[in-house]
């Protein structure tokens, strides 16, 4: 835990850049809307307030949705579950991926082959398709979607962590401790993992963006929260037939999803740039390469 200040140092440096500030403020704003939204919404998300696709009025500030429910209230209510699912899926995926990646790198041999072969198998599925495959068995359960997204993240994280950890496992101080007979688990926890913090921070940011895109995409396809619950992805699909009559039903959720992903992306970019300066690690890829590698999301 002696390395904790490094996380804070990198984050602090990232926040102080214009890019980092902008990203954090944008993403933070969306989180704020999603979290305090349900408390300040003027109506219930399932209450019929006005006519279907009614224009904005003093009754419903952003008009009505496909069934005449309040667009503003549904927007305020439809984010927190999406964000919570994305956050849990990301945390789970990064933790599992990092553990597998470090194990593959540190123990090598059979472990390495087994883990990386399993990684290849999961990587052969597009993320959304993998989630759909799991959803097709048990139906659109919330925990299942979170689990599916987490499982589809883990291989990418494992690959990145493995290559970074390989580098560290080869260094003299790790070799020295192995010779001294310090147990592997302890070396990993005390010395390998802390050296991976900046890699993992960037990975968390990227994964959060992709979690959001996949979960919102599933919700758009009708495999997320089930109606009549409000969810941004679902709202876009429900209300797109009334795009001309009342565009807010589509625009509001679309803008919020876009702002969140843009904010997280920008902040991650700032973290990647900031961590390049820390300790001059050779394991750190160029930010652009990081982004480019991730098109598969």
């Amino acid at each position: 835990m002696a390395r904790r200040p490094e996380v804070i140092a990198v984050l602090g440096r990232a926040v102080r850049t214009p890019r980092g500030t902008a990203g954090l403020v944008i993403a933070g704003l969306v989180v704020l809307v999603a979290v305090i939204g349900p408390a300040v919404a003027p109506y219930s998300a399932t209450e019929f307030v006005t006519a279907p696709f009614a224009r904005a009025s003093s009754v419903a500030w952003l008009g009505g949705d496909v069934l005449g429910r309040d667009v503003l209230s549904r927007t305020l209510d439809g984010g927190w579950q999406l964000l919570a699912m994305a956050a849990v899926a990301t945390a789970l995926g990064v933790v599992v991926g990092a553990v597998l990646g470090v194990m593959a790198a540190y123990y090598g041999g059979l472990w390495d082959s087994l883990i990386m072969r399993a990684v290849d198998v999961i990587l052969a599925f597009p993320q959304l398709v993998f989630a759909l495959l799991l959803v097709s068995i048990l139906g659109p359960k919330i925990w299942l979607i979170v689990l599916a997204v987490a499982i589809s993240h883990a291989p990418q994280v494992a690959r990145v962590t493995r290559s970074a950890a390989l580098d560290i496992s080869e260094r003299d101080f790790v070799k020295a401790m192995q010779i001294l007979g310090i147990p592997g688990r302890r070396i990993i926890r005390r010395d390998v993992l802390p050296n991976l913090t900046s890699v993992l921070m960037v990975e968390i940011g990227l994964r959060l963006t992709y979690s959001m895109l996949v979960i919102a995409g599933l919700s758009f396809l009708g495999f997320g929260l089930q109606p009549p619950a409000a969810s941004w992805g679902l709202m876009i699909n429900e209300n797109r037939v009334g795009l001309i009559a009342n565009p807010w039903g589509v625009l509001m959720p679309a803008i919020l999803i876009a702002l969140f992903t843009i904010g997280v992306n920008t902040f991650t970019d700032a973290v990647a740039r900031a961590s390049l300066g820390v300790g001059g690690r050779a394991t750190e890829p160029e930010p652009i390469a990081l982004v480019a590698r991730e098109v598969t999301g």
Partner: protein
Amino acid sequence: MTTATEATERVGPTSKAARPHPIRDLVIKRSLIGILTLVLVSILIFAATQTLPGNAASAVLLNTATPQRLHALEVQLGLTRPAVEQYWTWLTGVLHGNFGKSLANGQPVSTLIGGRILNSLVLVVLAGAIGTLIGVGLGVLAAARRDSVFDHVLSVTSLGVTALPEFVVAVVLVIFFAAVVIHWFPAVSVFAPGTPPWSNPRELVLPVATLVIVVVPYVFRMMRASMIDALESDYVQMAQLKGVPKWRVLLFHALPNAIAPTIQVIGLTFLYLAGGVVVVEYLFNYPGLGQALVGAVSDRDIPQIQAIVLVLAAFYIAVNILTDVIALAVSPRRRLPRS
């Protein structure tokens, strides 16, 4: 998968094997790993959909399931047999092009998805090719005018668009070109039955445009970065000092060296498209594999899900192999055998 196996046969063991031949070795090695991965993928797909507790029979019957009906259907679908035997039957069927019968309408899955594979492929190839051309073109231009207003505008825009989900892009396009502003293109792709996608060009415009907008930023950002690297190199400065015209330096000196790293990103673009078509096809009602997959998942039509996911995974693996081979072929340095 066909690409991979064909490639293996073409460079098979008959060629002169005296000198190290990294490309042939890579093709053979990657194809073998690819086939192994595909076998494991098929086991995973099968295990996930057919042998788990919530199996096909209960998926079909849902609330109408009584123990008797469940058992009757299980026998009909062969679910009472051992899992390995079921898998073997399924796999041998798949290898003969027989994916079983749809649970939703009883038709053979191969006839249901056969034409859709072509439709999706046209969408992916068009979007991939156009997206690559635009991305490479803009990347070269932005790098050539580095730090100009043009460069900054493109860089900021690409960062923003990178983060947009396909369905948001598609909805914006529909607002502008199909619904609210101008009515140029249909918002829904309805093909006349039995016609190939290229005889319905108007239907293709918006789905392709959506995917192009989503993939261009990635190709652009990579191309710009590697082009800037190339432009800062000694050989480019040498050419400039020699008085080679600027466009010649760009196209014939810098571009060939900058394209290699971009190949990987273009490969990733095609990989992304394999998943991206799902949402886009659903949104535009485009009759491809992705739309069928969404329908099959809703209906819990397991034979169809198995077939579509397997086809998409095979495409994924084939693109991966192809990308590595092309990247190796265009970059002479990496062709040297590793010592």
